[in-house]
């Protein structure tokens, strides 16, 4: 009898697995929906931020018309004028929706009730201080129960008063010097202009999308392999494969190939959606992206197989992959920069291949990195693949014949 080649068998197994997904219409639906939903959510959490431009007094913000209260305790002319300017600038740029409230306690109650996000207080002595040629203070309270909004409100208030303050300084300098000096030189002798890393990139999501792509593809295939193998074991079909004269490595290769194809489909769905909805752009080579994605998947599959071999059933295998997958989101530099973590956690993060896959993918997609530039990442992924497979294949063999 002719022997089936290991490769042909692996391809056959992969084809069957994919056909199975194609025929399970509801599974297919959620298989497609999951990355779309995930990406849309992440996309809206990190919305594109228009650029601030200090020279034109333009303040970039991700949020518009945030409700805040203005408590004016000074009736002086300067205070009134500053308040009017604040209201005008805020309205022009759509930053705040301002309501005037008579007292601080009443305004604070409004924060507690959740109606407003911040309070701007112009204290009683404001006009007097300015008239006396002394710096005056504006007091601010923000709704600190929501840290993101709180920091946005605080920085926007500072920015608006910055503009008002510079106007006042310009006037004073002009008065003193009689127009002989450039007021800007005195107010801010050194200014900063940002040259973007990539021209035209306005969305911070651009930098996050590759990481999410790597995360979805890799965790998807990790879980996929683990549950595909344990499902076949429980369902009994694995016996049909194991009792036939095919090398066991064909079973593994077939499962891996099917999961890689599934992962790539999800990955490119994510990419397509982020391009369409959130203006993400690809600057690098699709071929290198493809290589990184395949390597990223391959590096995790061995881990998936090891977990399946160790776990007594499908449910346990799933729990084990979840346990790996969930913290990986946080410690692999995808949602948060890895440098933010305590040292030991950084080591764990860097011990997992997701970090390198996400890093390489980010560099390729955004920075148009060449294969040579991401070689360290690529090599680590290859080494990881080999190491895990070296453990996984004999373990699989043994576990299946326990």
């Amino acid at each position, binding site marked *: 009898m002719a022997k089936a080649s290991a490769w042909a068998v692996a391809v056959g197994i992969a084809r069957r697995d994919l056909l199975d997904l194609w025929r399970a219409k509801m599974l297919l639906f959620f298989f497609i929906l999951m990355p779309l939903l995930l990406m849309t959510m992440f996309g809206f959490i990190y919305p594109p931020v228009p650029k601030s431009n200090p020279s034109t007094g333009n303040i970039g913000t991700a949020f518009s018309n945030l409700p805040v209260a203005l408590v004016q305790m000074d009736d002086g002319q300067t205070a009134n004028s500053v308040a009017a300017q604040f209201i005008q600038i805020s309205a022009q740029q759509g930053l705040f929706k301002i309501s005037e409230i008579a007292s601080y306690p009443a305004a604070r109650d409004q924060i507690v009730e959740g109606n407003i996000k911040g309070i701007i207080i112009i204290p009683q002595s404001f006009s007097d201080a300015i008239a006396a040629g002394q710096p005056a203070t504006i007091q601010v309270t923000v709704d600190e129960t929501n840290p993101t909004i709180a920091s946005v409100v605080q920085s926007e208030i500072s920015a608006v008063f910055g503009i008002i303050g510079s106007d006042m300084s310009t006037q004073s300098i002009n008065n003193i010097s009689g127009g002989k000096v450039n007021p800007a030189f005195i107010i801010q002798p050194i200014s900063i202009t940002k040259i973007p890393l990539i021209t035209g990139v306005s969305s911070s999501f651009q930098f996050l999308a590759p990481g999410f792509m790597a995360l979805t593809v890799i965790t998807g295939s990790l879980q996929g392999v683990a549950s595909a193998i344990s499902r076949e074991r429980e*369902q009994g*079909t694995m016996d049909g*494969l194991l009792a*036939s004269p095919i090398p066991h490595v064909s079973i593994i290769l077939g499962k891996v190939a099917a999961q890689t194809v599934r992962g790539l489909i999800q990955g490119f769905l994510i990419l397509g959606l982020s391009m369409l909805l959130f203006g993400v752009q690809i600057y690098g080579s699709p071929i290198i992206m493809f290589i990184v994605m395949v390597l990223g998947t391959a590096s995790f599959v061995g881990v998936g197989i090891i977990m399946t071999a160790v776990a007594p059933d499908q449910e346990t295998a799933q729990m084990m992959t979840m346990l790996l997958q969930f913290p990986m989101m946080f410690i692999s530099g995808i949602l948060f920069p890895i440098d933010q973590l305590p040292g030991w956690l950084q080591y764990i993060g860097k011990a997992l291949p997701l970090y390198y896959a996400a890093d390489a993918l980010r560099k390729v997609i955004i920075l148009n990195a060449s294969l040579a530039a991401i070689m360290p990442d690529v090599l680590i992924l290859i080494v990881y693949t080999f190491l895990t497979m070296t453990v996984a294949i004999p373990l699989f063999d043994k576990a299946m014949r326990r």
Partner: protein
Amino acid sequence: MTLQRADLAPLSEYAIETHGLTKKFGSFTAVDHVDLAVRRGEIYGFLGPNGAGKSTVIRMLCTLLIPTEGTARVDGYDVVYHAGEVRERIGLVSEKMIMYPRLTALENLMFFGSLYGIDRAALRRKSEELLEMVKLTPFKDKLVGGFSSGMRQRVNVIRAVLHDPDILFLDEPTTGLDPQSTRFVRDLVKDLKQRGHTIVLTTHIMEEADELSDRICIIDHGKVMTIDTPQALKDKYKTNSLLDIFLELTGRELRDSANAHISLRSPMGRT
């Protein structure tokens, strides 16, 4: 104890031979020094109460489990050291159906057949011929998931003989089938014997064992209780009922026990 490397045996008159075959799961001995000799071309009825060790023996013979002790040869090949050769020569119908519910009957046959390196055209011919034999030609392009258990089992049995294995293991092939399907599968088993397959059959239905088997082996607690032809057993125990002989040998008490070792492949396992 370590396994002795078994030499390649010359073709013997036996399709299956085991010597001191033993399987332990932790401290539990599922199969305890079993010696079997299955002749070529016979139907070997392999009987025993639940948990007696039948399936464990079959799984070892199919290379799906590694014996703890002893040797087993299938068609002269050692199940541990020549697993590849053994796998080419056996067909397995296990307690669980070896079939993908989301493939059609023909696709299932084509998939499993391809594992044996059968040329596609020949495989297709063979599959269609076997489907015709089990009267499933009109359903060949329908998903197996929608089949009745009788239809599934018919596909499952022909799946196991696609590559013309010398030796066929049928682990409870009629369990859960209606009388019509049971009759059909039993006739199919006889037919397969006619075609020259050696068949190891396990069943809990004594009349089935009586009707089909050339010889019967009863095991209990992992040990062989008796091996003989149905007629010789009846003569020896002076009864016409194989069931009485079975109960005489294995006792009448219920087999309630709970092992710490939970087998993934037990029929109780989630599917």
